């Protein structure tokens, strides 16, 4: 996945980039959550929450209710990572990406 192939394979890189951005933002939310109160008005915190809340809601639907919010966020990171792996393999399966030789 070199930079030269960025434009050629935009249909893979675009969803992969969105998933990666969500994953890292969720990780940032976990780290920021250690020092910021949940109802903080910090604009970075609010952005993190607003950006990742749909993912947290989706992950929360398939997670038992006993899991603490921070655990659900971490589960979200793992979900997004494996979704990226799935995306990569789906594109490789359909021959939409060059194989490593």
């Amino acid at each position: 996945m070199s930079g030269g192939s960025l434009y050629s394979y935009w249909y893979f890189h675009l969803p992969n980039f969105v998933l990666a951005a969500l994953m890292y933002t969720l990780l940032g939310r976990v780290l920021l959550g250690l020092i910021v109160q949940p109802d903080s008005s910090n604009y970075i915190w609010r952005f993190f929450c607003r950006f990742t809340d749909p993912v947290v809601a989706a992950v929360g639907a398939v997670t038992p209710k006993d899991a603490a919010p921070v655990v659900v966020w971490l589960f979200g990171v793992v979900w997004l990572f494996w979704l990226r792996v799935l995306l990569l393999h789906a594109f490789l399966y359909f021959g939409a990406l060059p194989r490593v030789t």
Partner: protein
Amino acid sequence: MDRQYYYIAIAFFGMINGLFNQVALLFAVLHMQILAPALLFGSTGLTLMFSSLMVSTATIILGGIPAAIYERITGTGEESSEVSLWIWLARLARMFGVSSSKNAGSIRAGVSSIFLPICFHRKDRLFQRTSQYFEHILTICIADLRHRCGSRLTYKPLGEPAISRWPRGCRNPTPRGLLGLRTGSRASSPRLRHRADPRRPGSAPRGRLVRASHPPS
């Protein structure tokens, strides 16, 4: 039982899954290197540890999905019920039995088959509701164990005699047969056929496996 023990057990099984599931670990390491190379500053050791964490967490997540579905169906309020925690734990224990390596596989399957019957010792009404689910898991575990031990163990369903081999054409009473799975390669080999026990005429169902001198007609 205190909820803390459930959490400890869930974390324990998740940790073991991450430590000993070599194929999944290798798969995760490769994809970590491809998809998130900068996350751990290119350190191979850290990447390996993080991949192990990914595998552990993934198994915990997968184990939690049936429990979450159960909670959504039954509507258990704000907290998980004890049944859903049991389901979570049982699923994780089942994954513990699914092996990717030959050496650790038998140990894991053995531990699973020892652990899961503990579920049945609980006589609460809530547990009786999910007994079929646990029995299903236990049956798979026993089938897994049988497969690993070379069919030397015998699954004995309640009220039925222990039968290690059944002739072809008869209903397969083993857990794999009950679940509609394929039987072992030895039993399904076309070169093997069954012969009735000569000491007991008409005892065809207790037949023994013999090597056929010629292909069966």
